[in-house]
């Protein structure tokens, strides 16, 4: 399993691996928002938390279709399926690798970009914590979606349509936690709900992803 994780991380940082694409996309989305809504700092700081969360979610979505599609194209998914690794472990490791290369950099980039959106100082802590708790769920749900669409030509768009509705609970509680933190309210409840969603997806979705992968490999 460590070997698979290391291979995926290594592939991500080699040429054409797509590391940094999500981050660059996140940067551009967040920079474009002030151009779109105008330079009123009051309005910007009100929408800062939501914008950062939506940006992170879209950036996460960008690299999802690579999770299994590349391994499927070059035949390594077949070989991995017949290797001594359980399929559930493969799905979980792939999700972890995706989070490490996409989700985690977003968590670190968010406070820097929050300055552009004039986020009130009280909001930084809750924003980073909510992203840290929420982005693993985005990667895990996305891995499940990628498993569903593996083997489909041009499956990327279908993947987005399948996965975005599943992202709604994470987005609601994540953005709510960041917003409440920004306004100086107590964030315990949305944070706990967010953590619960993440734990639930990590507990259940590797099994679901493994089941659909087995069907798709037939």
């Amino acid at each position, binding site marked *: 399993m460590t070997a698979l994780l290391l291979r995926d991380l290594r592939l991500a940082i080699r040429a054409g*691996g797509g590391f940094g694409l999500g981050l660059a996309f996140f940067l551009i989305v967040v920079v474009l928002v002030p151009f779109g809504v105008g330079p009123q700092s009051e309005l910007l700081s009100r929408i800062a938390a939501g914008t950062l969360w939506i940006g992170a979610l879209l950036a996460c979505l960008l690299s999802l279709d690579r999770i299994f599609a590349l391994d499927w194209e070059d035949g390594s998914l*077949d070989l991995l399926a*017949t290797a001594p690794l359980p399929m559930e472990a493969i799905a979980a490791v792939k999700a972890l690798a995706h989070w490490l290369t996409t989700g985690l950099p977003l968590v670190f980039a968010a406070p820097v970009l929050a300055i552009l959106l004039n986020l009130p100082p009280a909001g930084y802590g809750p924003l980073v914590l909510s992203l840290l708790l929420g982005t693993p769920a985005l990667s895990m749900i996305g891995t499940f979606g990628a498993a569903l669409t593996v083997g489909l030509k041009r499956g990327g768009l279908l993947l987005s349509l399948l996965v975005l509705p599943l992202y709604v609970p994470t987005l609601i509680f994540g953005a709510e936690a960041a917003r409440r933190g920004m306004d100086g309210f107590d964030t315990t409840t949305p944070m706990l709900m967010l953590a619960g969603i993440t734990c639930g997806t990590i507990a259940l979705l590797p099994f679901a992803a493994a089941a659909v992968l087995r069907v798709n490999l037939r």
Partner: protein
Amino acid sequence: MTLSVHNLSITRGGIRVLEQVSFVLAAGEALVLRGPNGIGKTTLLRTIAGLQPPLDGEISVAPDTLVYAGHADGLKSTLTVEENLSFWAQIFGQGDIAPAMDSFDLGALRTRPAGLLSAGQKRRLGLARLLVTGRAIWILDEPTVSLDTRAVEMFAQVIRTHLGQGGATLMATHIDLGLDQANTLDLTPFRASANQLDDFDEAFL
């Protein structure tokens, strides 16, 4: 360490392609599957490898003895030859990749990214993977595609050594590798007679 297949029926895309296939593959033996295109050689090999469930019949084999190599080599083009091979060695819990590199004469290509290899070199690397798995029964689908005569001889020598060490090989191939221990199984008599499904649901499986 015997692979035995009993009355196996298999489907491809919901259509029954082969039925009542039975054979036994013992240690030290090679079995070559033959038959016209589309008869179901690949499907049979994938079923035995466990990638798809059989429609009917039994496959009995000790767990963790099979390794499958399909049409695609499963190489990562941005990883070097050595990294590709080490990855599979680690997945299968094996340590040393040097014998596999030597057997397929990959030493000089060690640090080259797999994406820059020729088709034949890629295939050699794909076949070298078999040696780092430490598995006894090799399930090979057209292993000699794009190999030149020298590489085919290299491959035949690897198979001979593997059989000599008590391994076994089940392969679909159209060329003669000159193996003494090889039996041939022609799949033509097992072609499914009626391409109708008993169960409507199977059309969607």
